[in-house]
């Protein structure tokens, strides 16, 4: 099992969800986050006071998938989140040791 952490542009989050749903992914966790990568920040101007804003708003999507589905899921997210411009985000893939469905007590791939 893998845990995929995707950092994407906020307005792309909905398309990512749709693409993953088509693959049969049934759940995910979404968080509004801030950060920076190569895109860097931008400047904002308030009544003559100029501020460099380093952290840009992004959406973090966490999704657990079976090993079998992992490659397809990465591919689907990449396609859905891409604009071709700087700041499209990143995907992190982590090995997932265990998953438990709290209501039934199921564990492993059947709980994903």
């Amino acid at each position, binding site marked *: 099992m893998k845990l995929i952490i995707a950092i994407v542009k906020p307005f792309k989050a909905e398309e990512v969800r749709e693409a993953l749903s088509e693959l049969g992914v049934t759940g995910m966790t979404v968080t509004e986050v801030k950060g920076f990568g190569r895109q860097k920040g931008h400047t*904002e*101007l*308030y*009544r003559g006071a100029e501020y460099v804003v380093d952290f840009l708003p992004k959406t973090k999507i966490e999704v657990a998938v079976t090993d079998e589905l992992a490659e397809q899921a990465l591919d689907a997210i990449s396609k859905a989140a891409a604009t071709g411009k700087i700041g499209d985000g990143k995907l992190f893939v982590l090995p997932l040791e265990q998953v438990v469905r709290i209501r039934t007590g199921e564990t492993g791939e059947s709980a994903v």
Partner: protein
Amino acid sequence: MLKTKLKQAMATCVALLAVLPSLALAQDEINGANTAWILTATALVLFMTVPGLSLFYAGLVRSKNVLSVLMQCFSIAAVISVIWLIYGYSIAFGPADGGWWGGLDKVFLSGVTVDSVWGDIPEPLFIAFQMTFAIITPALIVGAFAERMKFSSLVVFVVLWATLVYFPVCHWVWNSNGWLFQMGLIDFAGGTVVHVTAGLAAAVMAIMLGKRRGFLTAPLMPHNLTMTFTGAGMLWVGWYGFNAGSALGANGSASMALLATHMSASAGALTWMGIEWVRHGKPSGLGAVTGMVAGLATVTPAAGSVGPAGGMLLGIMGGALCFAATNFLKQRVKIDDSLDVFPVHGVGGILGTLMAAVLVSTDLGVFSGNGYAEGMTMASQFGVQVVGVLATGVYTAVVTIILMKLVGLLTAGNRVTPEQELTGLDITSHDERGYSL
């Protein structure tokens, strides 16, 4: 023959006697239309402070200080109202002559009853209307010391400042015994009384309190410009009461003041955002609302003297000059007047007070105003306006310096500790937070 003439004369005398009491009373009769309008205007001007100015300012500070700013404006409204009742009205509008203050005859509004009359409106209404001006003036200064002044120091300062600056200056300019009034100063709705006093006090306090931590190095950004827009809209609407209400009647003067005020606000907003558009490539929302406030502050002293086109000119001049002043003070002089009270209100108030001497003229074609008082020329009126600005400005600055020193001693320092400033005033001054999301 003689008898009939005598009879006629006697009849005339009787008739006259019958008429006389009503003639004497005419001056004390209440005009319903004027009363209705000033009741409305009073509500509009209070609406400018709570919630208008409060929201305007609250949106401009960081989220950790939002409540402290709301609390400061709200508390000022409450405390000024109470001292206005106790002695403020008496100092400002009491009957004493001499030109400097109104004396203490009207302490606790002594002698004011439901039948008391001021001009042709009820005196209780005049008291309430003027009270709303006394409230908003110190509330304007909040912007200068936002995010770093101790609440206790603020309360003591505001009481003393209103007592020694606002109430007397109000007497000088707006009471018919006042020395600036008698000199012929044009200040229709508070260019000197409200904006010069608030602006100068703001500049002095910003300098004496020192910069906020991180001024010009860390982002001290507005936390909610939506809130600022909301408050700014309320200010614009409320200003109808402020300026048109200052005619103290439902008449042509009030109507023309309303129109001139509106044009100045519009032109001010367009000017500020236009300059930003040219200089920075984009017009900002904060720029538009700040330009609007600059236009409103600038037209305030002149609203009863200028025409609508004159109002528009004032808005353009106010928008441009206040924009330049804001940038100059922040970037060059590096004074941390947190929410730009001096460059917007002070500079706008001074500009409008001086320009009133020009735009009141009837010889300016479409830009003409309502004409000079008898015996005044553009030069002599301008001289009076300069005296008015200098007198109120210098007096305010000097008294504010003394009061800041005094209050600092009384409350063991005017400023919160660096830790409190870092944590935010909502938690450290009030034990609560603005947002629990």
